[in-house]
C-alpha cells in the first residue's frame, strides 16, 4: 500500500526530478524546433541534395527507436566526434534530434493549410519578405500548429523517461533511486506517475484554452 509519510519525505526529490524532466523536455523541444526550421528549409530547397539530407534525416529518426538514438548520441557521438557529452547534454540533444523530425512535419502540414490566396494577396500588396513571414504567415501558422505542437511536447515529456538509462536524474530515474533506497516501489512509481500526469494534464488544458481563444479571435 501507499505510505503517505514515505512519499512526503521523498517528495522534494521527486519535485527536483520533475524539474529536470520539464527542463530537458523544454530545452529539447526548443532546440528541436530550431532544427526543424532548418529541416523545413532544406526540404523546400531548390537543391536536390539539400532535400535528400532532410528526407534521410527524417526517415532515420522515424525508422529507429528513440532508445537507440539516445545511446548513439551518448556513446557513439563522442567516439566519432571526439567530444565528451554529459548525460544531461546528450539527453537534451537526443530529444532535440528526435523531435525535430516530427516538428518539421507539423510545421510543413501547418504551412500547407494556409490558403495560397494569402501568399498571393501578400505578393500583390508588394509586402517585403520579412513582413510576409512574420506578420502574415507566422501568426496563421501558429494557429495551425499549436495543437499538434502541444501533443508533440507531451510525447517528448513522456519520452524523456528513457533518458534514465543514460543516468539523467529526471523523474523516472529519481523514482528508481528512491525505490532502491526505501524498497518501496509502489510509493516511488505511483508518485512519479502522478507527477507526470499532473504536468501533462496541465499542458493539455492550456492547449485547449489556446485553441478556444483562437476560434473566437478569427474566422
Amino acid at each position: 500500500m501507499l505510505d503517505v509519510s514515505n512519499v512526503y519525505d521523498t517528495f522534494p526529490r521527486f519535485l527536483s526530478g520533475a524539474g529536470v524532466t520539464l527542463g530537458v523536455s523544454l530545452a529539447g523541444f526548443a532546440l528541436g524546433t530550431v532544427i526543424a526550421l532548418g529541416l523545413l528549409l532544406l526540404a523546400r530547397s531548390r537543391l536536390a541534395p539539400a532535400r535528400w539530407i532532410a528526407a534521410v534525416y527524417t526517415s532515420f529518426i522515424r525508422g529507429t527507436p528513440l532508445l537507440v538514438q539516445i545511446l548513439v548520441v551518448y556513446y557513439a557521438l563522442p567516439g566519432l566526434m571526439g567530444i565528451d557529452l554529459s548525460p544531461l547534454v546528450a539527453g537534451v540533444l537526443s530529444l532535440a534530434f528526435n523531435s525535430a523530425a516530427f516538428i518539421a512535419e507539423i510545421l510543413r502540414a501547418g504551412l500547407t493549410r494556409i490558403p495560397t490566396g494569402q501568399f498571393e494577396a501578400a505578393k500583390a500588396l508588394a509586402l517585403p519578405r520579412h513582413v510576409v513571414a512574420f506578420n502574415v504567415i507566422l501568426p496563421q501558422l501558429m494557429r495551425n500548429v499549436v495543437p499538434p505542437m502541444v501533443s508533440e511536447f507531451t510525447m517528448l515529456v513522456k519520452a524523456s523517461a528513457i533518458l534514465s538509462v543514460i543516468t539523467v536524474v529526471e523523474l523516472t530515474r529519481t523514482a528508481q533511486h528512491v525505490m532502491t533506497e526505501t524498497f518501496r516501489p509502489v510509493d516511488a512509481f505511483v508518485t512519479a506517475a502522478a507527477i507526470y500526469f499532473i504536468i501533462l494534464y496541465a499542458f493539455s488544458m492550456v492547449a485547449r484554452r489556446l485553441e478556444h481563444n483562437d476560434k473566437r479571435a478569427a474566422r
Partner: protein
Amino acid sequence: MNDMPETEPAAVEITGLNKWYGDYHALRDIQLSVAPGERIVICGPSGSGKSSLIRCINRLERHDKGSITVEGLELTDDKKRIRTIRREIGMVFQHFNLFPHMTILENCMLAPMSARKLTRPKAEELARRFLGRVHIPEQADKYPGQLSGGQQQRAAIARALCMSPRIMLFDEPTSALDPEIIKEVLDTMIELANDGMTMLCVTHEMGFARQIADRVVFMDHGRIVETAPPGDFFTNPRQDRTRLFLRQLLH
C-alpha cells in the same frame, strides 16, 4: 491607340504574350494596350485564360514569352522591379484573401506601413478614409470572419486602394458572392471607375461591363477573340464565338 505620345506611356502594354502550364498553352499571342484611366472588362468561358492574363500583369504568374510593360517599366525577373510594379497595381481576388488574423483596419494599414513606409497614424488615417469610401467605416475594428462576403470584398478593395495604386486588377470579384450582395460590390467598383481609376476586370457581370467598360475583351482558348466598346460588343459582335458566348450568357 498604339501610338501613345512619349510623355504618357500606356498603363499596361502587352505584346506577344504567351504562357504555358506544362504542355497546356494557356495564353496565346496576347496583344493588349491599356491607356491610363481606361476601363477594360475581360470576359470569356472558364479556362479561356482571362485570370492568367491579369495575374501575369502583377507577376502572380510568370509569362514565358512576349513582354508586359506597366507604366513604361518592363516586367522582368528582377525582384526589385517586380516589387516596384506591384506597388502601382492593386488587386482584388475572387475569395477576398483578407488576412484573417488581423482586423479590417490592420489589413488596410499593413501594406502602406511596410511597403510605403507610412507612419502608423498616417496609415490609419488613410485606411479609415478608404474604408469610408467603400462604405464600411464602421467595420474597421472587426475581423474578416465577422463580415459578410460583400463587406469583405469591399474591405479587400479598400486594402488595395490604400497603396494608392495607379491600376486596379479585379479577378472575378463577385463570383464568390450571393446574388443579392453582388450589387454592393459592383457599386463600389463603379464609383472607383467614375473616379478615373485604370481598371482591368475579369467578370461575368455584363451589366457592369455595359455600364463602365471602355472596351470589352473576349477571350477563348488563351486567345483574345474580340475587343470592342461595349455598345458594339453586345449589340453587334463580329465573331461567331462571341455571339455564341453572349447567347449562352444572356439566357
